[in-house]
Every structure is written in C-alpha cells, then in structure tokens.
C-alpha cells in the first residue's frame, strides 16, 4: 500500500498538561459499572472541542467532531473509562467487608494492599492472616478473594456499604522513562483520545467513544458502536507486555508485546480478527513516517473492537495499544515514548484515511 507522504507528520505534543491529565485519570476510581469519576473528567476536558456530546443509557460518553467536507468516512475511536477492581458485597460488621472481583483482576495480588473504597476514596486495607498462624499446607494455596476481607477500621464502619466499589490505592508516578499507575489500562487510551480530539484530523468525521464496562465484557462499546454506526473503528487500549526474561535463560517466545517497541498493532486477539486492510494501512503509515511500532503477538485478550466489529451489519475494526507491564495488578508500567509513538501513529494514520482505505478486498 502506498501512502502519499505529507512532509513530516505533525503529531500532537505530549507535555506537562497531558501528563497531568493522565495522572488525574489514573488516580480516579472508576471500576466497571461505575465510571462516574472518569466520565466527569472526560466531559470537562472535551467541553467545547466537539460538535456534539452526549452520555448514553449505559454511561458511555459519545462525542462527534465533524471534519471539513461532506460524506467523509465516519471513524470511531474507542477508549474505555473503566478499570478492573473490587466490589464490597457484604458487611461482616465492625468495618469489615467481604468483596468480589470485578473484571480479570489478578487475584494473587490482593493480600496485604491498601485500597480506596467508594468514589470519595475512603482508605482501607486488605489484610491477611499472620504467617505465624498458618500451616505450610495452607500457604501453598493462593489467598483468594473468598478468604480475604477489606478492613476500614471499626470507627469507619458506616463509611462504606455493600455495593461500593474499591480499587488499589496506587498513586500515579513517573519512574524515569516510565509511567506507573493503577489504571493505565485504559486511562492512557482515554488520554490519547482526548489528545486527538484537541487536534482532530479534518479528513474524517471523528466519532469518539469513551466507553464503560469494557473489563466485564466490552458492554459499553457494543451499544456505542450500534449508536454511532461508524464506517470503521479503532480501539485504543493498553496491552500486556510479558517481555521479562525467562528463568532458565531460554528465549521468551510468549511476550505478547514489548516495552519500547512502540504502539502494538493487533492482527488477532481473543475477540477480533483485525481488518487486514486497516492493519496494512497502519503499518504503511508507520513505515512512511518512521514511527516505531510492533505487531502484537496474536493470542488471547480483548479490546472494545471485539464488540464494535460485530455491531449492526459489521464494522471493519483494528486495535492499537500502548504496551504495559503488570496490567490488572496494583501497579502497571508503561513507557512514555511508547505513548508518544502511539499518539503519533494513530494521528498520522487517521490523517491518511479516505474513502479508498477500505476499497480493497478484505
């Protein structure tokens, strides 16, 4: 595929204001089913940037920015606002609560962590039995959510109730070339989408969907895509980088994606076989402008594209992710440069979309 190069591509800048926004987004608590806190930030940030904005029945924020001209391709960009987390399910009394997992949170990481309960982020902890009181046999079994409790302390017994959500209490931080946060999956996608709305490509009608309930089955994206009826769609997400060295020194062949490899372009995951024409388009744009990029290893996992591509009579779809280590644990890590290159690639690729992009055979 030939991409006509338009001199050097001017990608939106990522600086202090964007990092500040990502920090606020990552620190906000918005577990699947209650995305209020992030929705509030998104609505404030995109105010005045789009021609139309609404919040639908599930809580998705749907914003439309028209390009210049008529009959432009309708391009949906989706980033999910929700994160994996916990829900308090029963009050055992004295500020002790049972809880369950929401989404594919790594259960092995629960014990011994501070948490924030509710939208006001009331502090609590997940304790564990003192090691002195356990047997060796007991210890060889993982501590599952069933056996653990959230403890707010007796004086705070009334500060929470069953039905409240909780997240790990991990504050966003910069770690050298990296960024650390509890919910970079997918607040980094949300921040990327906001950055694109600030610099919208004029050649397309941009349909921005900040979605809910991705982590519990892509449920927000499903109705969002149905409502927006796009010609094509791009999901912006965060994908696992399982690129650590293998203990016996053998080659790591199951890394999924790698930090510093640039944006990860999907061919196939558990939910979507990406439209090959869009894969080719993004690769060609990346090569034309020498933007670092990598192919995400085909395999499991899902993004909003899994729901979007099956909406209505079907939508050619692709996912682009920032690679991130330790997703669905208290602290994920991404590289700042990977974020920058992701924004550059998505922005440039959108800038080159026209009616011919999907002309070839699928």
């Amino acid at each position, binding site marked *: 595929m030939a991409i006509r190069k338009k001199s050097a591509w001017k990608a939106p800048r990522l600086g202090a204001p964007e990092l500040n926004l990502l920090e606020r987004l990552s620190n906000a608590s918005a577990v699947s*089913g209650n995305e209020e806190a992030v929705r509030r930030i998104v609505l404030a940030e995109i105010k005045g940037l789009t021609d139309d904005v609404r919040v*639908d029945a599930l809580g998705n924020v749907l914003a439309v920015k028209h390009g210049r001209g008529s009959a432009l391709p309708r391009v949906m960009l989706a980033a999910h606002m929700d994160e994996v987390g916990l829900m308090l*399910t029963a009050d055992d009394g004295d500020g002790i609560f049972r809880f369950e997992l929401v989404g594919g949170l790594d259960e092995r990481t629960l014990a011994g962590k501070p948490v924030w309960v509710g939208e006001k982020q009331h502090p609590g902890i997940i304790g564990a039995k003192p090691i002195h009181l356990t047997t060796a046999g007991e210890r060889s079994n993982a501590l599952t959510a069933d056996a653990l409790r959230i403890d707010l302390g007796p004086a705070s017994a009334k500060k929470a109730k069953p039905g409240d959500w909780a997240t790990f209490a991990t504050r966003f931080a910069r770690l050298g070339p990296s960024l650390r946060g509890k919910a970079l999956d997918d607040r980094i996608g949300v921040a990327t989408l906001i950055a694109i709305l600030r610099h919208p490509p004029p050649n397309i009608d941009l349909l921005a969907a900040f979605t809910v309930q991705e982590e519990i089955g892509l449920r927000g994206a499903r109705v969002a895509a149905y409502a927006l009826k796009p010609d094509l769609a791009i999901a912006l997400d965060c994908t696992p980088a399982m690129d650590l060295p293998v203990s016996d020194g053998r080659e790591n062949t199951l890394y999924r994606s790698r930090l510093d490899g640039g944006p990860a372009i999907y061919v196939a995951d558990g939910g979507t076989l990406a439209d090959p024409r869009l894969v080719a388009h993004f690769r060609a744009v990346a090569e034309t402008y020498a933007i670092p990029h990598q192919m995400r290893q085909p395999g499991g996992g899902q993004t909003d594209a899994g729901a979007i591509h099956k909406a209505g009579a079907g939508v050619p779809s692709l996912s682009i992710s920032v690679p991130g280590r330790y997703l669905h644990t208290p602290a994920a890590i991404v590289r700042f440069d990977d974020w920058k290159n992701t924004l550059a690639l998505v922005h440039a690729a959108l800038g080159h979309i026209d009616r011919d992009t999907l002309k070839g055979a699928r």
Partner: protein
Amino acid sequence: MEETREHLKQMISVAGLSGHEAPIHALLESAWQPLTDEQHTSRLGSLHALKRGRAKAPRNSLAIVTHMDAIGLMVKDVDAAGLLHLEAIGGIDARVLPGQLVTLHARGGDLPGVIVIPPAHALPEDQSSGVPSLAHLRVDTGLRPAQARRAVQVGDLISFATLPQELDGDLLVGHSLDNRACVAVLTETLRLLQTRTHAWDVWAVATVQEEITLFGALTSGYALRPTLAVVIDVTFAKSPGAPAHKAFEMNKGPALDWGPNTHPRLYKEVENLARRLEIPIQPSVYAQSSGTDAILLQVAAEGIPTAILSIPLRYMHTPVEIIHTKDIERAARLLAEFISGLDDAFMEKLRLDTPGEGEAS
C-alpha cells in the same frame, strides 16, 4: 391477591421449558388479555402486552420484563432397553435428580416417568459411588423397550412433575417458581393499574430462553425500544447451605439489585420511592453480572436504562422452590406506584452527565 395466587399455582402446573414456551405463553396471553390493550408475540415467542398511558403520543414507555421459561430436561437418546438418556435445559445440579417424578412430553401426549440411577455394576467404575453425573442417569417411563422407542423421540422434553403446595404462613412450594413467581408480580401489577392512571405506556413482557441464551430479553428489547425497563427475577433466600451474605430474608420485601446491569440513577429513584411508601426492600449487590435478563436487555440496540427487582426464593433450580407470596404483593405495589409516578420530566432525573443526588459536582 387471592386471584394472583391461584394464577401462580396454574402457572407452575404447566410446562414451558426454555425454547418451548408455548404452554405458559398461551396461559399468560389469556390472563393478560383483559388487563391490557394489545397483545403481540415476538418472533422468538416472547409475549408483549401493551397498556397505554394517558400522555400525548409519542409517549415514553416502561417495559416490565420477566422470563416465563423454565429449566428441565431433554431426551438425548433412547437406548435398546427403552431408557431415556438426558440432556439438561438450563442449570441443573444432577444431585437433586434421582427419584424425581417427571413428565415426558411425547408426540402422542404426556407420559409420566421417573429419574433413576442404574445399579452399581451397570455404571463405569468412577461413577459407581455417590450420585452419577447426568450422562449416567436415565428416565424410565415404565414402557417396554419397543413401546418406549415408538413413543419417544430424540429431542422430546421432560419437565418436573412436582405439584404446587401451599405451606402455612403464605409460603408456596413448586417447580418453576423461578421465574413464574415474578410473572405473578407482573400480573398483579397490571391488576393494580386497572384502577390508577399513568402517563407512560407500559409493556408487560414475558420473555423466552432466559435460562439458556437470554435471547428473549435481547430481541424484545430491540423490538420494543422501551425508554426504561425493570427486570423481575428471583434471588436466593436464606436457607441451609446458602451463604448468608448472598441470601435474603423471605417476607422482608423484594431485593433491589445494584451493580453494572443496573442504571444507578434509576436504582436511586426506585429506592427513594420505596422508602417514601414504606415498602420494605432489601438492597442486593452483584459485582459483575446480575444473572438475569438485564444482562442482554441493557445492551439491546443503543442501550436501555434498567433496574432489577428480585423475589427471594429458597432452593433455586430444584423442583421444590419456595417463595413467600407477601413479597409478590409488595413488589407489585412498588411497581404500580412507580408507574403512576412516571411523568414527562422523569428522564431528566436519570441523566448521567449531571451530578446525581449527594454527588460532588
């Protein structure tokens, strides 16, 4: 309510397994005919009955959605001995099956049968102690092999034959109370609405296939596009073996479910209304999935704001489910009051882009 109790006993005396709801559909169609203005059947067999509102058209509409299908069994094969091999329709714990009386719905009419465990020497070694899995249980119709093979064909349905039984203190026992008890809530609501006015249209919806695919709720949501929906289903009542923190008291009112399938503002509206009317409700939370029609109803088409009311029920998915009929009455009164209060401005209260009650702006 006496009328509704009899109606419920009738409902749990007819079949209507998932995908094959014709018997219960027919019963409901005639029960709702005098209570509603129009009745339609969806392409998958769900019953849609409309009670028109008083507001000027086009009117907003509320759908009350309850599934009418029931769990049961299906004939998977008829062996040389004329014994029936079984496939489950819906979630059934094989440990409750041996010794159950069942009704086989065959071409030539209903036949009685009983679920049996073959003798130990006839079972594979790993199945010979404890209760064997469903694959090793059989239904014996009492017919001789050749008769059975003539009468029964692969795909025939088998339902539980437990008869309705009232217990002291307004308790009712039977199979299929999941979810016919909730259909009774809907019928009672329609009765209460006969003497009230309401601005919105009300769709009474009895869905198919909840126990298997949830496609009834999904497709009816798409067809009707209601402004709002309330799903009524059953939940666990406190009973031996049910974990206490997941179970609710019987006779303490319906549970109101909170979680991702629930529209948060709609939940608040129903909760506040119950408080004002002093109708007891029990808050219920689910972290991920409500396990009800709301799962797919909420995501039909462009999405439907949905609330979920649950009736506590003991021994769910056994042929001896128990409910308290006062809970049916309370749920119906709450729904009727809610419907009467719906006005033009109501949807403004559900907007998710404005701060809700008690939330920071």
